[in-house]
């Protein structure tokens, strides 16, 4: 596949860091080592899927990523939607305006700077590489160049894994931590049926309810699915 030769020195470095790990895990670990970030994650996304964490390395990276799913806003969603990198070197400054809900909670979890690189090849896009730092500050030019290579390698790895999958299924190693999300999608269906709304509106209603009641989206979804909570139209 294209780019393979150019990226071989990077692959050798990653193999040196964690020879036994699957490639996507290696890439996340490599981000933390080479880019001096606190955490990194490879997140697959699609029109229906606001973000499925496939591989990660570093403290609390999954929690910070999950915030965006819960809130429906944040740098990963923006980077994927626009197909352009998102750099926010100080969440407490510019980040507050861009994503008020996300910035507040991400800072509370210890993130101070976030960087998102779309995983794409031309117009083809499959997700994002998400990076965060526990202190403010932009990536250096050398780190920026490395981050683009890491994102390219992640993209090529994902396509390679997917090329071995049976039709209609996700490639082995791409499933990610997903089962906890199912309840939110089920609740979305329940609310759409009960209120005769579109699915996207139903999910927005669930998010809004969780936000207003200061509850986790998973708690609200579980209440809806069990029938203990019925959102009003």
């Amino acid at each position: 596949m294209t780019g393979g030769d150019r990226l071989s020195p990077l692959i050798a470095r990653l193999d040196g860091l964690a020879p036994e790990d699957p490639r996507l895990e290696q890439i996340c670990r490599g981000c933390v080592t080479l880019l001096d970030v606190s955490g990194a994650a490879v997140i697959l996304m699609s029109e229906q899927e606001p973000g499925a964490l496939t591989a990660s390395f570093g403290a609390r990276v999954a929690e910070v990523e999950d915030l965006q799913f819960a809130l429906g806003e944040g740098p990963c969603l923006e980077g994927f939607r626009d197909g352009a990198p998102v750099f926010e070197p100080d969440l407490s400054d510019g980040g507050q305006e861009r994503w008020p809900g996300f910035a507040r909670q991400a800072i509370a979890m210890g993130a101070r700077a976030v960087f998102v690189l779309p995983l794409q090849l031309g117009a083809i896009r499959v997700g994002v590489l998400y990076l965060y730092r526990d202190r403010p500050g932009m990536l250096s030019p050398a780190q920026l160049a490395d981050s683009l290579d890491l994102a390219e390698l992640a993209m090529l790895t994902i396509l390679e894994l997917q090329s071995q999958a049976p039709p209609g299924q996700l490639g082995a190693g791409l499933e990610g931590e997903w089962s906890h999300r199912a309840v939110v999608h089920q609740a979305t269906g329940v609310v759409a049926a009960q209120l005769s709304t579109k699915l996207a509106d139903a999910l927005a209603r669930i998010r809004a309810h969780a936000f207003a009641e200061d509850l986790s989206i998973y708690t609200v979804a579980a209440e809806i699915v069990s029938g203990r909570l019925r959102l009003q139209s």
Partner: protein
Amino acid sequence: MTGREAQLNRTFVELADTLVNHFDVAELLHTLAARCVELFEVDAAGLMLADERGTLRVVASSNEETRMLELFEIQSQEGPCLDCYRSGEPVIEENLEESERWPRFREEALGAGFRAALAVPMSLRDDVIGAFNLFRGQPGGLEPDDLGACRALADVATIALIQERALREARLMAEQLQRALNSRVIIEQAKGILAGLANVDMDSAFKLLRSYARSNNLLLVDVARDLAEGRLSPAVLAPRGH
């Protein structure tokens, strides 16, 4: 710079453009066949590319006679293009009338009015993906510089085609990935819709989806999508709910 050099340069620029822009493979190949006739002292040109199984196919020709001749070459399994594809090296026959190579091809080529035939490989390292076929109405070959330029053209075209194949493959994989990601979300949403309307739990909702899909010989995910997008009424799947 001579007019011909300028023309050659323009052709390379044209090719380089296709490396960075989205391009139509069929159009690129027809342009190349036409450029060969303009640039080199040949009267006709054609391109053959190997398919996934390594079988050569005629993909572009500067005229209909050439296309017929190339088709004949593939059918009779002998000729300069086939030798070139197998060896990865240029094949040059400056005088078909005096040659004893490829008896069936030779006769057909002479009948079409050609007296000389050349083939130049389209290859990248060890990977041969096809060949240029050049035909002359008079005996003779190409000047060494022209042969070099023709090989360079074939090399650049090869890179463009290999890149395009890789991109097409990548696009296909990305689409399959997106569909698989969407599917698992949509199935959960569809379970929720059924559960919400029929007042059943998620396991029962899943069973309703699955049995409807089976009895109608449909894929589970297609039923789920129709339900999620409102093309299928939940009432059709669910017993009377609340």
